[in-house]
């Protein structure tokens, strides 16, 4: 699905001391599965995610998604890919405060609005929200519920890839676990990339990517290691 080759993101290009958020990064990811990207603060995890999701253009290198080179695409083409292929879950849910939970989900949708509302209702129910909560605004929902609405929004178009940037950072343990379980389920047929600094939420990932100082420090499959151990 993704082939990342020698990608660098350099800030302060004209200064003598360039800042490398990413430094010659290489990675290949499959079509499906739950991928955890972990590293300390400032290691470049979010920058990597932004580059992969076309929210930012890397300074150097190439990112190939499904055979298509992303770095050379026009803004319109990048917008199309984000709209049709990608979904996003942010650290703070970033729900629109004046929209109901249902409207927050469907505002991201493409297609017939009746169908979108049906799908939205399906996902919200799957994510544990009750019907009476569909018409509530984010201020009337808990943090965990808001994050689940954000996940439903990310899933509404059945994207091939979901990018989740610190999706459990503002959640308690129980809700964090619940959210990761949902993402894991989704990753059975799609690719879900979770960026976090908290290793404890990545216990079920299929691929672990460790970063340090803008570089790939390690990548492995925790499940296969566990199988080997067992």
């Amino acid at each position, binding site marked *: 699905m993704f082939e990342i080759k020698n990608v660098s993101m350099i800030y302060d290009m004209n200064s003598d001391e360039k800042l490398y958020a990413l430094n010659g990064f290489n990675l290949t990811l499959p079509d499906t599965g739950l991928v955890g990207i972990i590293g300390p603060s400032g290691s470049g995890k979010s920058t990597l995610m932004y580059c992969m999701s076309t929210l930012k253009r890397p300074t150097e290198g190439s990112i190939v998604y499904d055979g298509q080179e992303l770095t050379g695409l026009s803004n319109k083409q990048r917008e199309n890919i984000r709209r049709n292929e990608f979904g996003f879950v942010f650290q703070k849910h970033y729900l629109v405060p004046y929209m109901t939970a*249902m409207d927050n989900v469907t505002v991201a949708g493409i297609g017939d609005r009746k169908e979108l509302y049906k799908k939205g209702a399906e996902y919200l129910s799957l994510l544990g929200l009750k019907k009476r909560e569909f018409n509530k605004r984010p201020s009337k929902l808990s943090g965990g519920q808001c994050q689940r609405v954000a996940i439903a929004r990310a899933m509404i178009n059945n994207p091939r890839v979901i990018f989740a940037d610190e999706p459990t950072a503002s959640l308690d343990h129980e809700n964090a676990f619940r959210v990761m379980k949902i993402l894991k389920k989704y990753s059975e047929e799609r690719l879900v990339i979770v960026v976090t600094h908290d290793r404890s939420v990545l216990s079920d990932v299929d691929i672990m990517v460790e970063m340090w100082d803008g570089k790939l420090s390690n990548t492995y499959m925790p499940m296969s290691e566990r199988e080997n151990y067992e």
Partner: protein
Amino acid sequence: MSKLNPFSALYYMKENKGRTALLIFMMFLGTLMFLAGNYIESQFYTFEKEFEYSDKLVVAGLQSTDEEFKDFAAFAEDVSEDENLEFVYSSALGFSGMQYGSVLNLEVGGWAYVFNSVSDMQKVFNHFGIEGDFSNCKHRSIIISKDFANNKGLELGDVIDHSFDSKLDGEYTVDAIISDGSFCTFYIYEDYDSLGRLYIYSDTMEGEELYDYVRNLAGDKKVQIFASETDTIMPQFSIFYVIFYAVDILIAVVLSVTINSVVTGQYMKRTYEFGVYRALGRSRKDIKKKVAAEIISMNIIACIIGAVLIFLFTYLINELYYHPQGLHLLFLSEMGVIGFVICEALILIPLIISKGIKMSKADVTEF
């Protein structure tokens, strides 16, 4: 299911009534330039009939250099023989039109017509299309319109003395009130000693065509062909236009800055909302269209409210204040429309462009 698309402008306005109401109120202030333009142009309303009559009748008079009145007499002969023209004689004494209070509370003097006899007056009135009861009219009669009479507080039979105009000797009586809506003063003054003016009119010509015809007929003769009211008065009014449009632009700039700062504050709070839309794949064009739709929708509502309130205000003030004075505040005017359009353009265009660009650049990665 919400009936409105959550991405639409109407959805935003419905769910954010307080903010929307504030902006609509501020945009409503811009529509007041329409009322201001109507107010200014209403000043010219009282001259409408004067201009119409001036287009239909050319005044020709003695020139002071024509010492023996030879040229004037020859010109009068030419006019009488010309089958395209009609005329009546009038006194060379230049009576003034009575002054009246205008919409802008300015004292304005109207045009005066002086007829040597009732029959001369009726000939010209027929040409102007003025009807009325002139049975009481005689030497030293004044004929004015109902609107003019209301404005001056005059009634049939009222006496006006020469203190109003030093050229008037003795007293004049309001002997007929007509309904032509003009603010002209029509005198009947029998003056067979100094008939030094001609009122020239035609059944087949008026306006520039009539004036050019009469000037050509006069040729080099020492005869003064008075310029039309339109040519005399309108240039004096140009200062009103200049001042109004200058003030309009100034007010528009002030409103634009004020509204822009309020709108900026509101949109800054929504930067992350638009950043999320961008992350979800909404194009910059979609974002700009959404911003434009929100601002324009609010403005349309403000304009509708403004139109209704201005109409009601104009109706009431006409009924209660202006009509009893024979005056009229216009419901619609060219100046009002142009003033409104300029103001709206100066408010909306920078707002839509600046906010559209700003929000289309919202970047969720920078939150």
